């Protein structure tokens, strides 16, 4: 009995082996019979693996081959093949291919079957590659437990290599597509977003709020310059077509120092290439007039620029504001300059100015606050002296297509805070349809405004960033906030979340050590996770359990490992990893004769000099504060020493 049972087991095992061998033989025979398509499929799948392509690229390639197939069938029909016989054409071509191959005419055989084999092979390769990705993503593929993780890392390297090659190819990454979308760079990988070769940002998203996070040396400036250039180029095109107002870019760089000035110079040259007629660099080369604000707004701005403290000091703040109001709203009209304003902060001047006013209110106010006027004057004299001439005009936001405002937030925080407050108030008034803030454009000229603020939290003590956000939203301004880290985005956690969650234009995340809060905003996605049985050796069996579970859309580990020039663009619960294409700035213009700065066409007298970026040692006199900057040599230094880390 036992012998019979053992015999039965052996027979069953033998039958199974024979069945498996038969299946393998049939499979191999099918592969051999379909050799041309199999070869194309293998090549296509290997290429997709090597280049880190998604299967969609192979399907698209197969679709592009269909005209070839149609032409081939048309040629057959034109050659006398009756329409019913066309159905047998693939079979006949396949047969002819084998005959030619048997006769040794391999090239002829390949040409005969190519119209059929190439699309079929690409399709099969795409399906095979798709299955491979699926099995690895679900954890059901690979020989070792670590295979899916290794596969993912390897594919990331391949995808990065392909993206880098794409941005290195001249002309392959334009700034704008035909539909006006802005191209940020070459796509590395996408999750829950369309898998395109280029990362494309529709223009309306640049007209919405965006957040950019990345530490120093990760390519944040390169990304920002590209986005600004895209905004300007598309905005100018729409304006030229009469479909939108003229764009206006205002950058508040709250770091200051030499680096900010170099970036300003680079921005000017990049923007010039996109059609911006003039880029004003404030306060080095251009000025704005704080005194152009309407009196009520001017009082509020001037009062906020001075730090008054809280508690008992609030009384002093009220006195200060009243004295400023008296000086600004004097019957003779608002002050026109710093000197004019300071001269009014005098008890005698105020008494004379309000002497003829029948209403007794101001007179009483003057009597009660006369003892404080000299203190208030002292504070404003010190503050306005430290602010310099940048806010003393002439000039307004309407005078240029782009403003690069440098606030010395690192060196002089108090001054930078006051400047930030004044600039934001000026821009808000301008956006609300103010009289152009001294613009030559005339009153009420509307502009499509993008306000980009870098490290604004450094100067936002007196103007919380969410206030700026809310105010911008109500005025139709787009705000782009950038910071080096999540804590740098705003003063407290509530503000940070408020800023990040209202970024309806998307969030750009470059390498940063703590990306979790932002990554979490992208949400989770459902993936299938498979557990498989180990056989005692490091190989898996084909038995196990699969279950759906949530995994973060944005992997914080990938963010922490991003290289220079790589970014993750988070939008609507999906993410696109992108290799940003650096914009090469044009050479600086030649300097004009010393002391002569050519204003932009149409600019008002005293408008910012627009073409003073000059090259050459002759223009760069030693120690001359008015000397222009030398040409940008970043591209050459990148060639020699690699991109700046």
């Amino acid at each position, binding site marked *: 009995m036992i012998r019979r049972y053992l015999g039965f087991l052996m027979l069953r095992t033998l039958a199974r082996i024979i069945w498996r061998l038969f299946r393998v033989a049939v499979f191999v025979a099918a592969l051999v019979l379909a050799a041309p398509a199999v070869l194309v499929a293998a090549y296509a799948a290997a290429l997709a693996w090597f280049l880190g392509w998604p299967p969609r690229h192979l399907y698209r390639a197969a679709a592009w081959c269909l005209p070839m197939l149609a032409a081939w069938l048309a040629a057959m029909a034109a050659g006398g093949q009756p329409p019913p016989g066309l159905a047998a054409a693939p079979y006949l071509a396949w047969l002819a291919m084998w005959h030619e191959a048997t006769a040794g005419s391999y090239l002829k055989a390949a040409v005969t079957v190519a119209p059929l084999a190439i699309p079929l092979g690409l399709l099969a390769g795409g399906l095979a590659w798709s299955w491979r990705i699926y099995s690895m993503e679900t954890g059901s593929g690979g020989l070792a437990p670590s295979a899916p993780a290794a596969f993912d890392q390897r594919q990331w390297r391949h995808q990065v290599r392909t993206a880098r090659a794409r941005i290195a190819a001249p002309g392959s990454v334009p700034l704008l597509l035909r539909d006006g979308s802005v191209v940020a760079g070459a796509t590395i990988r996408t999750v829950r977003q369309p898998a395109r070769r280029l990362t494309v940002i529709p223009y309306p998203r640049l007209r919405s709020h965006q957040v950019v996070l990345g530490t120093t040396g990760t390519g944040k400036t390169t990304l920002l310059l590209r986005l600004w250039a895209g905004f300007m180029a598309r905005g100018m095109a729409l304006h030229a077509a009469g479909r939108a107002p003229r764009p206006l870019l205002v950058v508040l760089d709250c770091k200051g*120092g*030499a*680096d900010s*000035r*170099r970036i300003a*110079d680079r921005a000017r040259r990049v923007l010039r290439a996109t059609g911006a007629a003039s880029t004003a660099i404030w306060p*080095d080369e251009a000025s704005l007039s704080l005194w152009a604000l309407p009196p009520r707004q001017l009082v509020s701005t001037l009062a906020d620029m001075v730090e008054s403290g809280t508690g008992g000091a609030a009384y002093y703040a009220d006195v200060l504001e009243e004295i400023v109001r008296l000086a600004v709203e004097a019957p003779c009209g608002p002050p026109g300059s710093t000197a004019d304003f300071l001269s009014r902060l005098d008890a005698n001047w105020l008494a004379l100015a309000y002497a003829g006013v029948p209403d007794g209110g101001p007179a009483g106010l003057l009597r009660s606050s006369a003892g404080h006027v000299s203190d208030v004057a002292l504070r404003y004299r010190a503050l306005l002296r430290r602010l310099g001439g940048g806010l003393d005009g002439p000039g307004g936001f309407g005078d240029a297509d782009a403003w690069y405002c440098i606030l010395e937030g690192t060196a002089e925080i108090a001054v930078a805070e006051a400047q930030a407050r004044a600039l934001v108030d000026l821009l808000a008034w301008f956006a609300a349809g103010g009289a152009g803030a001294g613009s030559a454009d005339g009153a009420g000229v509307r502009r499509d405004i993008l306000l980009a603020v870098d490290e604004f939290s450094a100067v936002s003590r007196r103007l919380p960033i969410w206030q700026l956000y809310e105010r911008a939203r109500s005025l139709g301004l787009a705000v782009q906030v950038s910071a080096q880290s999540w804590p740098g985005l705003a003063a407290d956690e509530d503000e940070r979340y408020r800023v990040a969650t209202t970024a309806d234009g998307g969030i750009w995340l470059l390498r940063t050590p703590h990306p979790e809060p932002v990554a979490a905003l992208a949400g989770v996605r459902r993936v299938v996770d498979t557990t498989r049985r180990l056989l005692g050796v490091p190989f898996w069996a084909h038995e196990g359990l699969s279950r759906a579970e949530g995994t973060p859309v944005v992997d914080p580990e990938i963010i922490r490992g991003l290289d220079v020039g790589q970014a993750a663009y988070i939008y609507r619960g999906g993410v696109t990893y992108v290799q940003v294409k650096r914009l090469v700035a044009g*050479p*600086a213009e030649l300097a004009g004769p010393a002391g002569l700065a050519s204003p932009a066409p149409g600019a008002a007298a005293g408008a910012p000099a627009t073409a003073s970026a000059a*090259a*050459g*040692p*002759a223009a*760069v*006199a*030693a*120690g*001359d*504060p*008015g*000397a222009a*900057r*030398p*040409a*940008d*040599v970043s*591209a*050459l*230094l990148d*060639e*020699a*020493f*690699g991109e*700046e*880390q």
Partner: protein
Amino acid sequence: MSERNVAGLLFTAEMYGVQLDQLAVELGVSEVRARALAARWREQGYADSARLGPGRPWVWLTRAGLLACGLPYRPAPPALARLAHLRAVTAVRIALESAPGYTAAGAHWRGERRLRARMGSRVPLREHLPDGEVHWPDPGETPAGAAVAAPAWAGECWAIEAELTRKTVRRTAAIMTEILTRTGDYGCPAAEVRVPGVAPRHARVLYLCSAAARPTVVRARDALPGALAVRVEIRGLPASAALDAGRAAREAAT
């Protein structure tokens, strides 16, 4: 003597001395071939070589070698205290010369040794000499008279500084100012060193810094007036600048 031999001898002379791996990179040959070249020079009495520190052996020119090159330098082996610095400067020169923009513009390097030789015994005690100068020729013309494309910085002279160790911010800023405000060539009469109103000699100074020195250099640049600060370029030293870079590369490969 072949062109490669001449180029190698001149390069070695200009840089005080070079390590074999850098000589190989400069001449575009394998290290074995560079070693053979150095051995031949030594046989001919033009050069000497020894293992002076970590990494590959050093090669430097003897009096006969310098005479053969027509260079008026004092023959001496590279000083032990300056080995790391010499290697860093050589790495910077090689990196620059490997950039297509450099060769396309026809730029050329003028090393510290040449500058020092021009000054002779007139180098003042506190005078600072850059580690090198890069000269960018003015745009030329084709035989047909058409202008040849040239970079925006054509006609400029750059000072090169390889910074391995940290100085004080004050000293670094003083050096930057000295370089950027100099108007005369090295070796010129004292009255021409700084002439008000005359264009400065160096359109910019390029600092190649180690990780340790970089913060100081950045702070020094920030301490300069804006017009000078924008003429200071700061980059990291190439990986091959480290004295034991060869060993590190081998370890990474294995």
